[in-house]
């Protein structure tokens, strides 16, 4: 245990004092999140988006013809559309068939829309929905943090151990009574602490001015994050098991991480992408982290709803760890 904590301490100090890497790990995701939130905010030609179901009976509903209003006709389940109002993706839903309309209490637009529509939707019932708006950043933040986690885990464990092997630190360890198991576990724990802290910091830091929507439990979010970090570190260990060349290691890791980032839905939703790609993405730890944490944050999912992701992450972790330990060599 003494050996273990000493190695964790040394490795963590090495990270903290390597200022370049330290700030990179922290600033890169911060800048990305904020950059995207600026890039994707506003620039909408329409002032209001109104969803409609069915056709108006009798007289024309003239306010719906205003040029600043975008009309979206829905055939889908009403529940889904109401959910869109809850997330402020549309501002209003008018159901001509049932003579009802829906507004979001929390939305600034609702007041104006109520006045605009009051003359024409006379015998309609108003039903209210509550919910904070979901912006692109809310949806994006788990992706960015996940991506940063992936880089930090792969390179902070995989790459660093390859470097240790190349420059002889591992050989020096082999000459001591420290077992590979203790050494590697200590590396993992140190990296785990670093990654979980940076993830929390990035989230809390950007949250200060972006005020993310978190509908689910923070504790569950933390659990999913921890499990995912553990899984990604284990994945990085596979690369660390044998390789001696840093160039080869970083090449291979880039080769693997980039498709993961593109196909795990960091920047865009996987809905509508080819089936094959969606299936492939199920083998990436990042996909499960992103989907599970989006579900918790945005949909307020509980542990039951995200259980498939938790199981997938756990199984992958075990497979990665087994593979890495079979392959591992000091030299």
């Amino acid at each position, binding site marked *: 245990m003494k050996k273990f904590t000493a190695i964790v*301490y*040394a490795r963590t*100090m*090495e990270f903290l004092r*390597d200022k370049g890497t330290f700030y990179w790990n922290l600033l890169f995701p911060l800048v990305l999140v904020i950059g995207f939130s600026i890039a994707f905010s506003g620039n909408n030609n329409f002032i209001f988006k109104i969803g409609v179901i069915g056709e108006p009976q009798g007289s024309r509903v003239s306010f719906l013809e205003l040029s600043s209003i975008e009309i979206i006709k829905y055939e889908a389940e009403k529940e889904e559309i109401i959910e869109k109002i809850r997330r402020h993706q549309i501002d209003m839903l008018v159901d001509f068939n049932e003579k009802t309309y829906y507004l979001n209490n929390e939305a600034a637009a609702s007041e104006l829309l109520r006045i605009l529509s009051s003359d024409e939707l006379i015998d309609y019932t108003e039903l209210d929905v509550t919910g904070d708006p979901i912006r692109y950043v809310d949806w994006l933040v788990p992706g960015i943090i996940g991506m940063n986690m992936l880089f930090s885990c792969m390179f902070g464990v995989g790459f660093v151990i390859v470097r240790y092997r190349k420059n*002889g630190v591992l050989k*020096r360890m*082999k*000459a001591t*009574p420290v077992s590979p198991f203790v050494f590697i576990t200590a590396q993992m724990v140190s990296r785990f602490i670093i990654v979980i802290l940076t993830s929390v910091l990035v989230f809390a830091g950007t949250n200060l001015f972006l005020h993310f929507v978190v509908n689910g439990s923070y504790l569950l979010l933390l659990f999913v994050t921890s499990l995912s970090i553990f899984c990604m570190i284990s994945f990085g260990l596979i690369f660390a098991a044998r390789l001696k060349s840093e160039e080869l290691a970083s090449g291979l890791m880039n080769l693997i991480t980039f498709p993961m980032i593109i196909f795990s839905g960091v920047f865009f939703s996987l809905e509508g992408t080819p089936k094959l790609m969606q299936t492939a993405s199920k083998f990436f730890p990042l996909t499960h982290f992103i989907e599970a944490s989006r579900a918790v944050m945005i949909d307020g999912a509980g542990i039951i709803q995200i259980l498939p992701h938790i199981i997938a992450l756990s199984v992958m972790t075990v497979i990665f760890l087994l593979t890495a330990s079979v392959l591992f060599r000091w030299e």
Partner: protein
Amino acid sequence: MFLNMDAIMRIDDLKKNYGSVKAVDGISFSISEGICFGLLGPNGAGKTTTIEMMEGILSPTSGKVYFRERKIDNHFKQKVGIQFQNTALPEFITVRETLVLFRSFYPNPRSLDEIIDICSLTDIIDRDNRKLSGGQRQRMLLGLAIIPRPEMVFLDEPTTGLDPQARRNFWDLIERIKAERTTVLLTTHYMEEAEILCDQIAIIDHGKLMEIDTPGNMLANHFDGALVRVPHIGRQDLQVEGSTYQGDCLEITTKNLDKTMKELLNTGLNLEGLTIKKPNLDDLFLKLTGTSLRS
């Protein structure tokens, strides 16, 4: 030699092949407890390969390594201190932190103060590992090697690259370790160092053991007498007893200096630059391996 009752380590027909390269080609010897044993040989002779097999770092292609007549096991690593020829240290941490880290690996480590004292680390104790000079680094690495209060230390070229003063200081450190009855296995390219520090020397070349003995015996067996050297003679046809040619240089090993000098004078040779000296290990090394140690 094979019935060395107080041997702390013994190797038996040790071999290591790298593809077709026979880095170590059947070496056997034993090391008595408490001595300083020197492993000498030119570059590429197989010193590092031999010592790393003895440390349990490299696995031999064939042959056996015994520590106190037992195969080396996990406890072995708690009992020995190792300094590699090229060691990397964890980066971004200080000498003190490195010592603390390595102390945590052993059951009964030496105290920090004791290590600092033995290896004179006071001045550099809070310096980053990456910012040590060659000599400071070697002192620090020796410090790591002696942490476990080892029964035996392995030092692979600990003084290579040090200035003469730093080398002398390092010898003092090794003498201190020897004084604790710690067995020392040392490789070096400096004959002078081996003569001063080592109780026993093994000379290896091309992966084979050429000679093993105390420095004194070795010299006595090979050269009893003096070595006369005449530089730049420009010919190789002189009939003087005991003469050999090293390039442009005539060398004569002789027991009868009077007779040799008379013979030399009779040749009418220009004797300018002639030297007479007692042969040392450098000369012996040259004789055995045909290469100078430091070439």
